[in-house]
């Protein structure tokens, strides 16, 4: 197959040469004249594009190359076709030399078997010379086929530069998303503090104020008792808020304990399966924790689920976090909570999938590389 590909490549290179000669001769003058240059150049490139498509077909057919959807510009096409034509012709020359050498070797072999006038010295020198030339030709062919593959990669596939550019775009997007997610979380914390803790504290202070104004000692006592209870509620609330901001158990006790905390806090029963043989990087632990905690909270709050199962499993260098609930489904992946999670996971080059058909069940899967 590959040999056929190389031979066909020699033929297509001849086509390329023919095209450059004919088109060059026809368009040469127009290419030099400034007023027609653009048009002529476009024509030249359009023809070259057809031949290039042929080359691309050859690479796919004989060498099973897979090229992504990608459109090269005119300059790239012309540069490719020129380089490819040159290396293809060179390849044809080398193939020609190999054939010539084979014929010579045949003649040499025949003359060996029939009685000839060759001396031993002649035979040895011929073999050494032929072997050396054969070695050079084979090396040349290898180098040329390599180059053919590389040229095709550069023109048809994303080049090194484009791959870098893509990666940079990806990183820029995920960075912006992370910043946004952080802002959303901060807003949530602010609201937790203002609408939860602050209101309770104001109510507590009011109780104390009323107790001080209390007309009778009994009344004042009753209000003080209420205030005392309220103060304990404020403390509980504050602990909850702090925990939602960052679970300190993660640092002290690790992911497993922190997840245990999530299931204890959840009103719905949570089945936890935890299989992580090796220690995880802390960024991965934190992301995994928030995926589970957000998903479990959503299941309890919005999905009216009666059971949630969580599975955290490490296989090789991938940590898979899977949260499934038996709720009503219809979770919106574009909602702020899930978007934030997606950004958090994407920042670690992981993926987050949300599968939540109406009627349930909802499955949230995060895959995090932990190399």
């Amino acid at each position, binding site marked *: 197959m590959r040999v056929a590909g190389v031979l066909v490549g020699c033929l297509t290179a001849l086509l390329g040469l023919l095209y450059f000669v004919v088109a060059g001769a026809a368009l040469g003058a127009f290419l030099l004249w400034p007023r027609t240059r653009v048009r002529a150049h476009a024509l030249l490139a359009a023809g070259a594009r057809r031949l290039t498509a042929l080359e691309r077909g050859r690479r796919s057919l004989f060498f099973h190359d897979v090229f992504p959807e990608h459109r090269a510009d005119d300059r790239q096409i012309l540069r490719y076709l020129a380089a490819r034509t040159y290396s293809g012709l060179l390849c044809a020359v080398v193939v020609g030399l190999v054939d010539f050498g084979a014929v010579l070797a045949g003649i040499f072999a025949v003359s060996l078997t029939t009685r000839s006038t060759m001396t031993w010295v002649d035979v040895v020198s011929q073999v050494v010379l032929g072997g050396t030339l054969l070695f050079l030709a084979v090396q040349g062919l290898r180098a040329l086929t390599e180059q053919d593959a590389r040229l095709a990669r550069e023109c048809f596939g994303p080049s090194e530069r484009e791959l870098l550019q893509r990666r940079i775009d990806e990183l820029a997007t995920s960075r912006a998303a992370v910043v946004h997610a952080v802002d959303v979380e901060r807003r949530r914390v602010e609201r937790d503090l*203002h609408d939860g803790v602050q209101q309770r504290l104001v109510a507590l*202070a009011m*109780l104390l*104020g*009323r107790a001080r104004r209390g007309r009778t000692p009994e009344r004042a006592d009753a209000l003080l008792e209420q205030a005392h209870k309220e103060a304990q509620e404020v403390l509980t609330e504050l602990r909850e808020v702090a925990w939602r901001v960052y679970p300190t158990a993660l640092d002290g006790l690790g992911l497993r304990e922190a997840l245990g905390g999530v299931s204890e806090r959840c009103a719905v029963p949570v089945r936890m399966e935890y299989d992580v043989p090796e220690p995880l990087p802390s960024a991965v632990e934190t992301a995994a924790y928030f995926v589970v905690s957000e998903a479990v909270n959503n299941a309890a709050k919005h999905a009216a689920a009666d059971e949630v199962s969580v599975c955290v499993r490490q296989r090789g260098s991938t940590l898979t976090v899977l949260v499934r609930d038996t709720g009503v489904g219809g979770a919106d992946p574009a909602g702020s909570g899930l978007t934030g999670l997606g950004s958090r996971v994407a920042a670690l080059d992981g993926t987050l999938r949300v599968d939540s058909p109406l009627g349930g069940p909802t499955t949230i899967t995060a895959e995090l590389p932990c190399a």
Partner: protein
Amino acid sequence: MRVILAEDSTLLREGLVRLLAEEGHEVLAAVGDADALLREVEAHAPDVVVTDIRMPPDHTDEGLRAAVRIRELRPEIGVVVLSQYVERNYAAQLLTSSAERVGYLLKDRVAQVEEFLDALERVHAGGAAIDPEVVRQLLIRTTHVDPLTRLTPRERTVLEALAEGHTNAAIGEKLHISLSAVEKNLNAIFDKLGLHRTTGYSRRVLAVLRYLES
């Protein structure tokens, strides 16, 4: 007085209802969002409305918008808004039409029961009640303004008390100076700020606040 409350935190709402009831005020309705507030005001015609600024659905400035609306439709109703933190433009929006029967208090002020009740009384009596913290911050932010820097420390404290909506007599009591000393200070302030002398003290508050916002 007859009061309507709008506050989305159940806990605080209940606390306020109790407090006002204990003080002998009549709470006509206590609601949790701005739409319900407007409906209740329409139905009951209270003397004073107390409303939180941040309320459902968006938790932005629903309460303030409702307050501004009530002031447009029923200027005879006193309106006190409770704000999470000092927001100049909220204060400005509330005070642009007039500085009568209006209060802008920080939510935490509710915890100082006496001060809160006092502010409510002032608004009910036709005056203004601007949170001391709001006034302080407005003054801090405007220290780079020339005319204010020409005030003496004593004049500044008088101006603060004035902006909070206190009467001359109350200012005298607050600062332990005689009534005539208060008036003398006020005249000096108005001269330095280039404000025309006016009679109603609430209009003075408005003038001062407007000046501070410039």
